[in-house]
């Protein structure tokens, strides 16, 4: 029996140690950013020499950080528009294609998730060339359209997955009991897939607020977006306010993620 024990214990020890190490590498950078954002130093240094709120204060200063504020506002605005339009498109398409197995339905299904695999820079360049050749020069609507294309697959996948779990017997009994199409949709389909729609909208918004490639090609000086602004701040002299912006983004992400986990079990919907 001694050799059996060795097998079990070596397995637990080696894999437990490797697993904990890998988890540390995965999560530690997020925590390091939070720590550095409270530095009292003038430059980024680790470990910080002291604790202070100064970089958060500098970030909230409306004069000093007006460009960052404008970029954050643009990002929020674009994200909300993209989420509203993209979720509606994805929901309609998901309803149309649910349980369809024909060749046409399958190719539409593939088309709608293709942007996930395509290098975003290729689509961003294509959109830039396209919009300038047709003479469409409104930067913000162009950015919104671009964000919808590259982020909508996440919402479409999530909504389709929740539709595929819907029991068709429910719909048949609803209609055989005399309910019309829209009544069935409103009373049966919608309540069941609502968590899936919320999860899809959430993922679409999170992807839009982080997008770099499309924003970089389609936005102009007035519609500067937050990730681009942060990138510019990192490339230059490494402004410590980047740490404060990152700290706020991490905090907001954590709160939103926990809220979505409680309400719609977001972690079950990403597979």
């Amino acid at each position, binding site marked *: 029996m001694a050799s059996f024990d060795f097998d079990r214990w070596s*397995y637990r020890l080696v894999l437990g140690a490797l*697993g904990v*190490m*890998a988890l540390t*590498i*995965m*999560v530690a*950078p*997020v925590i*390091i*950013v939070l720590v550095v954002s409270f530095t009292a130093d003038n430059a980024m*240094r*680790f470990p910080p020499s002291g604790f202070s709120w100064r970089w958060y204060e500098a970030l909230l200063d409306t004069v000093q950080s007006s460009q960052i504020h404008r970029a954050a506002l643009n990002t929020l605005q674009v994200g909300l528009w993209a989420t509203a339009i993209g979720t509606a*498109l994805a929901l*309609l*398409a998901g*309803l*149309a294609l*649910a349980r*369809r197995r024909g060749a046409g339905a399958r190719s*539409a299904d593939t*088309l709608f998730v293709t942007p996930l*695999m*395509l*290098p*975003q*820079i*290729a*689509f961003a*360049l*294509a*959109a*830039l*060339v*396209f919009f300038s*050749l047709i003479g469409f020069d409104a930067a913000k609507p162009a950015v919104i359209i671009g964000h*919808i*294309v590259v982020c909508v697959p996440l919402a479409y996948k999530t909504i389709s997955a929740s*539709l595929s779990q*819907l029991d068709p017997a429910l719909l*048949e009994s*609803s209609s055989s009991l005399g309910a019309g*199409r829209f009544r*069935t*949709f409103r009373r049966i389909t919608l309540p069941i897939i609502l968590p899936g729609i919320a999860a899809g909208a959430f993922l679409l918004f*999170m992807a839009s607020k982080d997008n*770099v*490639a499309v924003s970089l*090609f389609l936005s102009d000086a007035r519609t500067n977006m937050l*990730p681009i602004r942060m*990138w510019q701040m*990192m*490339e230059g002299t490494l402004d410590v306010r*980047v740490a404060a912006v*990152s700290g706020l*983004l991490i905090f907001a*992400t954590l709160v*939103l*993620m926990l809220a979505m986990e409680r309400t719609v079990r977001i972690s079950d919907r990403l*597979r």
Partner: protein
Amino acid sequence: MGGSIAVPDAGRSGRMLLLAPMLLFFGAFFLAPLLLLVVVSFTNDQEMTVLGTAQFEKFLSDRFNWRVLFETLLLGAKVVACTTLLAFPIAILFVQAGPKLRRLLLMLILLPLLTSVVVRTFAWIVILAREGVVNSVLLSMGIIGAPLQLLHTEMGLIIALMQIELPLMLLPLVSVLSRMDPNLIAASQALGAGSWRTLRRVILPLSLPGYAAGVLLVFASATAAFVSQSVIGGGRLIYMPVFVYQQATTLFNWPFAAAISVILVIAISMVAVGVNQLGRTARGNIHG
């Protein structure tokens, strides 16, 4: 089951009506721009008036361009390899975990995934900089006498991308493993296989389809990781996405930028087809 799921007897026209908005949107703003990109890549002059293959000839005739393409694909492969080393221990931990720990692990995977790539790239600047985490730890332990140059090196970029892309590898892997029948492990051990043998003969083979999906996602994302490549890689390391960006926005050479993009898409697609084929073979071996 005649009609669509929403409306039991909507029929064909009702379905098309629901599908039309997304289809038109993708036609106008996804397919049309991509088609245009391909056309532009086949123009010879910067004003895009003369059709021809000059841009592709220009790309393929210069060794420097081949190097950039090769380095980009190699970067993707290296990041996939490093991510694999971290992903499997976590995935195996997930298999052995109970429901509560599984949920916690999923949240730990999700948090970095939902945190902006720019924020994660910034984290790695803090870690790899001259006065960063790694250097200050090594200096204080007396392992090195002077700070190491970690930023703006290929090694620094690969380490950073390994962490940045890790959630993309973990999600499909964990998803496949959470559907695995737990009785399989018990059966394997009841039949006398030890833990290591069970890992090698049961868990790893069953994880291969998820692993193949993860490889694809990580490869596509690492080769396209524009911000990380330029900020952590620095100006001396040039990869395809930065190449496209320079040609398009600082040199305004759209046809050449379009040709580089088309070549990048083709190269990534070829890798994807290859990995898919391997994934399918692996699945065939399990069930066949």
